[in-house]
């Protein structure tokens, strides 16, 4: 078998490679990082069942240095976990970093960014979602009035159909014009 560590079979690695933007080496590195989070809970050799079955609760995933300081950490984990609780299996974990990797295309990133910012999960970014986003971004340092103003401004800029919330299409439109999004929405691992 080509892989030195022997964590996965070649088929597994190949499947991961097909489904993510990572090379074999990177996948193994990510696995190491994953295992570092809970060395006891995760076996050294993962079967294809284990990759999906064994889940780390959010509290443990949060300890990742790459995610620790991210204000949207909880949302990210929730979006990528299968059951929405924030508990991540290895596959979810890999998925997370694949989407946030540098090579992931803008479309994919936009979809997940939308999900992350959609706090209440109603497929729209409503005012409450925007408020939550702002609170996360500024750690509650803006006053209510200021938050309200910024939310109004954001809606004014993006809400094309005047329904008081952003649909995915509107979000995509605005992201395609946001010059900073692609440079900021990635995590190097």
């Amino acid at each position, binding site marked *: 078998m080509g892989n030195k560590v022997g964590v996965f079979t070649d088929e597994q690695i190949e499947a991961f490679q097909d489904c993510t933007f990572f090379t074999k080496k990177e996948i193994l590195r990510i696995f190491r990082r994953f295992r570092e989070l809970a060395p006891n809970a995760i076996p050294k050799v993962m079967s294809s069942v284990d990759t999906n079955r064994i889940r780390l609760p959010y509290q443990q995933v949060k300890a990742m240095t790459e995610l620790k*300081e991210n*204000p949207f950490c909880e949302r990210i984990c929730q979006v990528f976990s299968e059951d929405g609780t924030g508990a991540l299996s290895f596959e979810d974990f890999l998925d997370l970093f694949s989407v946030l990797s540098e090579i992931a295309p803008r479309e994919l990133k936009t979809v997940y960014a939308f999900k992350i910012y959609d706090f209440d999960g109603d497929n729209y970014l409503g005012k409450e979602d925007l408020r939550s986003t702002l609170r996360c971004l500024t750690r509650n340092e803006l006053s209510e009035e200021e938050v309200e103003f910024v939310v109004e401004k954001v809606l004014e800029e993006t809400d094309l159909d005047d329904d008081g919330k952003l649909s995915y*299409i509107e979000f995509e439109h605005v992201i395609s014009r946001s010059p900073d999004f692609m440079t*900021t929405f*990635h995590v190097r691992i």
Partner: protein
Amino acid sequence: MSQTKQTEEHEDGPMHLQKEDKNEVEQNELRFRRTSQAAILAQLPSRQTFFSEAGFTLGRRLSCIERRKSHLHQRASMTPSIAVGMEEDDDEEMVMANRRVSHAVSITDGVKSITDQWERTQSIKAMVASIHTKRKYSDNEEEYQTKISSTQARGHNSQQRAFNERYREDDQFEERFYSGDSQNSDRELTKDFGGRDRNSENGSDDETFSTRIGFDHSNLDGKDTVIVRKRKPTNISDQHSESDSSSLKAISKSRSMRKSVNLNTLPSHERRIKNFQARKLEALRDAKNLEEYTQIYRDEILQEPVQRTQIWKYQQKKAWQHFKQQAKNVLYQLELWSGAFKEIEGQFGTSVMTYFRFMRWLLFLNFYLMVVMLGLTMVPYVIKINRPWSFLDSPHPNNTRSNFTGDDFFEKALNCTKNYIGFLDNQTNPEDWGSKALDTLQGTGWMEHTVLFYGTYFNKTYSLPLVEGRLTYNMGLSYLLATGAAFLVSFFLLVKNSAKGVKSSVLDEGSGQMTQFCNKVFGGWDFCISNQKAAKEKHKNLTQELRGDLDNQKLLWKIENRTTREKAKLYSIRVVVNTVVLGFLVGSLYLIYYANNKLIDLQREFGDVHPIVQTLIQFMPSVTITLLNIIVPIIFKKLVEFEDYMPAFQMQITLLRTVILRLASLLVLMGSLYGMVVEDHDHFVDDCGNKRWQTINNTSEAPIKCWETYVGQQIYKLIILDFLVPFVLTFIVEYPRRLVYQRFHERFKVVNMMGQQEFDLPKAVLDLVYTQTLCWMGLFFCPFIPMMSFVKCFIFFYVKKGTVLNNCIQPVRPFRTSKSNSLFIAVLFISFIISCGPMTYMIGTISPSQSCGPFRVYSVENFIFFDTIRNLIFTFPSDAQKFFHIFGTMAFFIPAIGLTCFFMYYYCVQAVGYKRRAKLLKEDLIMEGKDKQFLLARVNEAWMYIEGTLPGYPNF
């Protein structure tokens, strides 16, 4: 009245017909009623189904619409009744007619709105029905759906036809009305309608039902009419029919008017709606079919054997992608400083990172320049075989094959060189190590002899070892070409990079204002940040930025609300500040000029003092420039605060002023050097291509024996200083400052107020640009300069990285990543153009020294640098000569410039067009968004009708 007439004209033919054949009209009318009743009949069951299936809401809504319709009927019937009530008064006939017209117009609107309402209900119905069909997949439903649409169509047609006929009748009525035989006409009409009513009553049960619906309210109107007319009803049926007739008349009239107004637009609109509905239905049906299809055939699709070639292709594609990714990965790891980038990005975010990226770009630029310059000048000079070590030992040109170096010029150059070398030997004492070190700093003494400077190179055409006697190396030509190539390389790299910048900035500009807040909210957080401190800073930053934007808004409002007095005050302040800034600029430029001119004076005056003092004097112009560059920007930064600009503009204008100072100071330096080199002086002998070759009358100023080297030395000194000052500042100011802050910021308020060093991005970038400008300006006179800037960039990367990571905090108001890079490149481009100017001017007009350098042997009197190239061209075959000659003539330049202007104009126009198109597309997008919202609302409504409540949005 005029409108009625208009309609009369329109319907002239039918009216004529109608007059002739009254019976037929009646029959038509009858047919219409039948068909329309049939249409209503067809809809009735549907209504019932809705009652049962879609709950009561839709039914309620339908009945509401019907109520409104009848209300309109009521209103319509009012009009003629009023008219009839007043009819006895003949004098007011015209007035009444007018009023009637106006009433009719208002009714037209009402009817229109009703039809719209009706159409909308129809579309809702269709949608509800289609959703039902989709949901239940029952064929019955679908059948029913098609029935609805067909009946709709039929009903519509028949209605129109009927209205036409009614109109005719209406006209007839009118005729009679105006003839004064109103009683008669009334009676006649009554008869007509009564008969019709009876007819309808004779029809089927359903028919009666619908009739009742239609005319229930006209009964009521009838009563109203009675009251208005104050005439005792003789017969219920008579009254009934009369009111009926009047109402019909009103409707028909309004219809006819509407027709005359909207003759063309209306049908197409309806058709469009119908088309739209049909298309929608089709799409839904297709979707349904597809779903079923996939459900049925899913297994088959899955089991379908895939062709081997396809598999192979897929595998190849996959492998190629993998290879690409891996290659990228390897390249990424080979990338210079990628680790450092990650570290900086993690702590300071991407905006500071752009500075380092810019630095790395400059590093590579300087590397290319270095390769070009050294490869073409120094390397051939050093490695040449059979070398004469000095120009003095070189063989006489008679022995070489050169055609353009005459004996006289060669002798002259030989003499001048001897003089120059003797002068140099007098000045330096090679034994003293201290003075050697000082010379190193100044580029004088022993250094003047080295390959570092222009003066050492000499043009010796020598044979290469491999092709003996065949190939010659023309050092002068190579020197010129190397300079040209260096500038071209820089130009192309700059254009390439700035094109990237322009692209992003154009994109930015288009939407920058529009998505300012969104960019911050959705793209604000840098997901790369993995450091707690940095995260905290970033949070603070974002808050500040958002607050800044809010303040911006407030400022904008404030600016809008400024009073004249405030404005006057502000503008006077701005004028004053600008004057002061201008004063500072002019003053500092003069200072540089003065320092440069005084330099030689002072050199003479303090000729006997200690060499260190002499060195200091030598450095005077450079120190002046550097000091001014440090102090004046700080003053500018303070001054701009009084001007009360918008923050972004404030930063830009400060940057602009600083750039002007920096580049202008360099230009002044070049100018003063130019004056020294080119202008005639009273106290000097002009010889050997140098205007200050030898002093006469024992003046205080020192002679310049090789002006190219002299200029090179000035720039060399600036570069050395530019390298040392930030280095020293970093270790003497920034590092201790941090230590002091860390130790004492809790104890002393002053220290706390001073705060920590903030990373000043614009200033840091300006420093880099300045160094690069020096490099471009100096590379001709001192071919080693690109290497020096290369080394400087390399060392500075680590110095800056260290100080940024350890001593600095993040800038309070960071640049936007996308914007800053294009700004850097723009500034660099300006400096490139500015440094290009003097260089081309010099090569095209000034004569080189005869005492030093590769151009010292002239080929003609008044030789200039460019003559080297001209001489080269003369050695070409005659056709090639002609070809190159054309480049130098006006016949080439004028069309070339014209063509360039034309293309520029063309692209400008195109850009304007694109901008406009983008604007239109944006509008389209907004419209589409509104459309979508409208449709969603309709669908939503439909759902509400189905569920009875609001169940949440359908999940698309």
